[in-house]
Every structure is written in structure tokens, then in C-alpha cells.
């Protein structure tokens, strides 16, 4: 399924949010370093998972990648388009080729619009089906593609359940025939028995349409299931990236290890035997992140130099990236 050609290339991406105070004369009283220098590729046809605790900057990465926030530094290239500098026709092409699916099925659909207007919006904006009737036909097709009835076009979002609304959001994202979709926690707000439906749908659509996903989540079991490779994020930076089975079976970074050991396992036998690494304390604030390695304040294996030197983002093993001083590269590599 995956080739070696990156569809998306992110280099040293930074997004800082200034915190402003004051009414007429605003001054900056602090800076949230929401994303602070991340680099990775996403290959055509693959699903890259992005996991980390809430507030670590996952959504900010997704939005900055799509040019919805101007980046503070770095570059993002999607299918040959340089997102950070794209204008005019290039930007319009990007808006068609890259789309987004959201977490909250209630906030992500305009409550005053009918399903037909919502799903038809990308078609209208990009003038893909200028004819009104053809557009309605296409909307029906899209709804059926995501498992809803085409008869529902005149309904409003509030008439649907959470899972159905999420399908409407997916239909909208598919309308402009995108290559790349950022899925920002698309199942986190759904009932347990509905999550599998939506995940299966996303997988089917990927096979059918050759889509590439960035799948943001905090449910690590689902990430393992759906993703080819997984990136782990902590406080604005990536700490590890590897093929999912490698990451789950041989995590290198102490944060990844702790995160995986904290995942509840739906099997009492495994759960009892498991050795848990319970991290102490809370995630520090991204306003004044710790110097050196950002994880050193909670790290079980931290050394004195971890508090001073920022670890380099490197391949500890082929295609296994990690940012940690204490992880040795494999012999001979």
C-alpha cells in the first residue's frame, strides 16, 4: 500500500502563540510554545498516527500543516505545495487536496445548514459541480459512500446521532476529492460501540480512494490498529516515531514506554501481570517548558545533562526516530 514517496514533508515546524494582555496597547506577556520544531514525512497511502497527552500540541500541528495557523518557523510541503508560502491558485489547490475531520461531532457541523449545504460546500467553493442538480446528486453519492441514506439531504445536523454526524463530517471532507486528510481525534467523542464503525469506514475509504491520513488520537489501542507508523509527542515536540508494531513492541523513549504501560488493557490477566511505569506529576506548562529535554522533569532515567542539552531528533535504528540522550543507537548503524 505504501510507497517510498512522501506526500507530506514537515521540517522544523514551530508554532508559538503569544499571550497578549492590554486593551489598546497590547503587550505580549508570554509565549505558548505549542509546537516547537517537529520534522517528519507522511508517505502516500499511509496512516501516520500522532499521539500524546492533551495540550501537547497535536491539533496545533494538524492545523498549522493545513495553513490554518501561520507557522512561526519551518516548512510544510503537501503534494508539492509549500503550505507556508502558498497563495492564490496554489492555495486553492491545497484547500481541495488536503482536508480535515474533527473530534466534536456537534461543533463541526453548522447547526443552521442542511446536510446538503454542508456536504456540498466544498463542491460549491471549488466550483466542482456548477450545476445545482448535479451537485445534489454528488452529495447523495457522498452520503451513501459514508453509509448514510441519500434521503437525508434536507435534514439538519441536530437530527442525527453523534456517529452519524461524524459520517457527515467525513462526507464533507471527501467532497473535494482530497489526497490527504488530517483526522483530529475523530472517534474520541463517540460511544464505544460506534467507534469501530467509524474506524472501519475510515479504513475502507482509504483503500477505496487511496487516501493518506494524519490520525491524531489519544487512544493508543485504536492508533495501533489503524496506523502504519506512529509519532509520539510530548509538550510541543516529537519524542519518537516508528512503524506501529515496532513502536508498541520495542518503544525506545522512556515517555513512550510510560505512555504504553499506562494504557488500560481489556484483559484482566494481562492487566494484573503488567509492570506499570507510573509517571510522577503533571505535564509542565508549554509557556515555560523545561530547558534541555522537555521530559527530564518526569523522566525515570534522566541524567544531569538532560536538563541542559536538547536531545537531537535522530534515527536510533533504521526508520526508528527518537529524541533522547539515553537511548543508544544500535550497534553498527
Amino acid at each position: 500500500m505504501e510507497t517510498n514517496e512522501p506526500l507530506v514533508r514537515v521540517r522544523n515546524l514551530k508554532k508559538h502563540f503569544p499571550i497578549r494582555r492590554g486593551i489598546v496597547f497590547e503587550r505580549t506577556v508570554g509565549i505558548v510554545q505549542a509546537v516547537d520544531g517537529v520534522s517528519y514525512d507522511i508517505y502516500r497511502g499511509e496512516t501516520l498516527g500522532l499521539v500524546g497527552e492533551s495540550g501537547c500540541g497535536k491539533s496545533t500541528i494538524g492545523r498549522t500543516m493545513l495553513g490554518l495557523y501561520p507557522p512561526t518557523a519551518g516548512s510544510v510541503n503537501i503534494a508539492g505545495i509549500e503550505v507556508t508560502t502558498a497563495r492564490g491558485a496554489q492555495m486553492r489547490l491545497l484547500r481541495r487536496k488536503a482536508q480535515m475531520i474533527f473530534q466534536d461531532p456537534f461543533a463541526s457541523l453548522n447547526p443552521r445548514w442542511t446536510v446538503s449545504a454542508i456536504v456540498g460546500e466544498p463542491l460549491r467553493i471549488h466550483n466542482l459541480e456548477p450545476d445545482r442538480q448535479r451537485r445534489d446528486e454528488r452529495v447523495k453519492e457522498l452520503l451513501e459512500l459514508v453509509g448514510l441514506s441519500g434521503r437525508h439531504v434536507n435534514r439538519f445536523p441536530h437530527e442525527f446521532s453523534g456517529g452519524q454526524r461524524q459520517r457527515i463530517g467525513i462526507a464533507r471532507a471527501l467532497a473535494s476529492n482530497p489526497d490527504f486528510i488530517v483526522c483530529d481525534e475523530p472517534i474520541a467523542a463517540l460511544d464505544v460501540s460506534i467507534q469501530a464503525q467509524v474506524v472501519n469506514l475510515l479504513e475502507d475509504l482509504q483503500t477505496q480512494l487511496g487516501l493518506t491520513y494524519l490520525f491524531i488520537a489519544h487512544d493508543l489501542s485504536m492508533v495501533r490498529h489503524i496506523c502504519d507508523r506512529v509519532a509520539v509527542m510530548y509538550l510541543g515536540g516529537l519524542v519518537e516515531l516508528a512503524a506501529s508494531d515496532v513502536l508498541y513492541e520495542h518503544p525506545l523513549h522512556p515517555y513512550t514506554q510510560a505512555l504504553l504501560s499506562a494504557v488500560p488493557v481489556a484483559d484482566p490477566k494481562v492487566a494484573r501481570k503488567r509492570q506499570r511505569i507510573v509517571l510522577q506529576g503533571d505535564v509542565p506548562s508549554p509557556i515555560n517548558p523545561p530547558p534541555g529535554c522537555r521530559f527530564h522533569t518526569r523522566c525515570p532515567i534522566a541524567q544531569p545533562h538532560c536538563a541542559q542539552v536538547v536531545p537531537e531528533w535522530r534515527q536510533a535504528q533504521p526508520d526508528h526516530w527518537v529524541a533522547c540522550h539515553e537511548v543508544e543507537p544500535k550497534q553498527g548503524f
Partner: protein
Amino acid sequence: MTTIEPPARIGLAGGDVEAPPLSPGQMAWRRFRRHKLAMANAVLLILLFVYSFGGAFVYSEAYANYNDTTKRLQPPSWEHPFGTDTIGRDILARTIYGGQISLLIGITAVLVQLVIGILIGALAGYYGGLLDSLLMRFTEAVLTIPGLFLLLIMAKYFTGKVPDITLLGRTYSGSVVVIVLIIGLTSWPRLARIVRAEFLALKENDFITAARATGTPNSQIIFRHILPNTVAPIVVTATLSVAGAIISEAYISFLGLGVQPPTATWGNMITGSTNYIEGAPWLWFFPGLLILLTVLSINFVGDGLRDALDPRSRPE
């Protein structure tokens, strides 16, 4: 027909009932129609318009301004059903012609308020940052100047500078236009602040991010996505403002700066009756009743409109 109890016995979320064959507009109309009070008041509002504009076919404007000093302050009678005023003019005829002006002032002043208030509130709320700071400081400045004071200055300044206009075969003195502009130009700040607050909250919704990710232009995001979600507070503010505008006109007229005599308005008819509140109650009762009916009916219609435009409210 089958022995199986239909599954509908267990209500399913978003049940697969047949899609309603109605368009959103039809649904809105249906919701409005079921709102009994709003429907009744819509009819009343139409009657008030018919009264003011249709009445002109029964009584001429000259008759409304004709004064017969021998018939001053007559109580209601067959000849003058609403009585006569201090200089012997027929009050019924004057409420008809006064109504034309009061209704026009009330509605157009609110339209001016809506245009400015929505524009400024939307731009400030949506774009934020420096533009927001500037627009909001300006709004607050307008808000802190006492409204009446501003009205008076503007009334003094504009009077005589705006030519008369002719509409539907009737000539309106320039002062009517001035009043409309003045009221419109002074009443928008409250609406602007309400609209801005709504925009600030609504623009954080994911459906706005989705629209931006699709490349929807800002103008469409503002007017098609966000604005329809703010109708409830806008309708409430606007309907209350119609009453305010009609009454503001009365204030200005009272101070002698509004619509000039002999042209009647409901407002100046009431202010002209202040010395006869007990002696000749018909002087203020009829224009007062008409203002009250207009204000109430507009508020109820606004209420119905707000529900009708909300797809979430049920057509029950």
C-alpha cells in the same frame, strides 16, 4: 402483518424516518405558522400597515392637517371618531398619516442600525486583533456619549440640509430622513457589541475551521456561516429597537427638532398632548395605543421569527 413487534418500539437515535419532503424555507414557515401568538401578531402588524397606508385613500393629507378652531378638543364622536386636537384637527386622520411616518421611522431606523451594528460587530468579532480594538473603542465612544445629546446635535446640524423626498405619492420633509439617520446612527453600538460577542464565540467552532480548510472566503464565513447563527439575539435587539426608534422620534419632536408640524407622527401627537393628559385623554390614547400595538406585535413576530429560523426548534 408480521408477528414481530416493529423495532420502532425501541426509539433509535436519529431514527430512519422518511425524509421530510420540505425545504428548509418551508420548514421555517411551518414552524412560524404553528407559533399562534406570532401568527396573530403578524396579522395585527399587517393591519396596522393597512390602517396607515390604506387609510390615505379615505382621508386626504390636507384633511389631516386641516384645522377648524371652532372644533378644538372635541371628544370622540361620529363625525370625529378619535376626537379632535388642540387646534381642531381630526385625530383619526392624523393617526393615519402619523402612522406612515412613525412606522417608516421605526423600521428604517432599525434597518440602518442593523446594517451598521452587524457590520461593525461582525468585522470586530471575526477578525479580532487591532481592527477589533479600533472598532470597539469607537463603539464605546459612541455608546458613552449620551444618546439624547448626540441626537440633538445631529438634529440641529442636519436639519435643512436634507432635501424633501417623495415616496408613494407623498412628500416627506427632509426632517424624516434626518430622524431616521440620527436614530439609526446612534442606536447601533449595543447591537454591535452583541454581534461581536456572538462572533467571538462562534468563530472558535470547528465548523468554521472546516470552512476555512475548504477555502471558503471570509465574506461567506461571516455572512453565510456565522451570521445565521446569531439571528436570535439580533432579532431580539432589533424588535426592541423598533419601539425605541418610534419613541426616540417622539423625544426629538418634543424638543422641537424632530418632524416639523404640521406633519403628524404618533410621537409628536403624544408629546403635543402633555398638557391635556386628564382633560382630553383621547389626544394621547389613540396614538399611544397604536404605538403599543406596533411594538407588541413586532416583538411577538420577532419571537416567532427567532424560533422559525432555528432548525432545532420543533414544529410542534
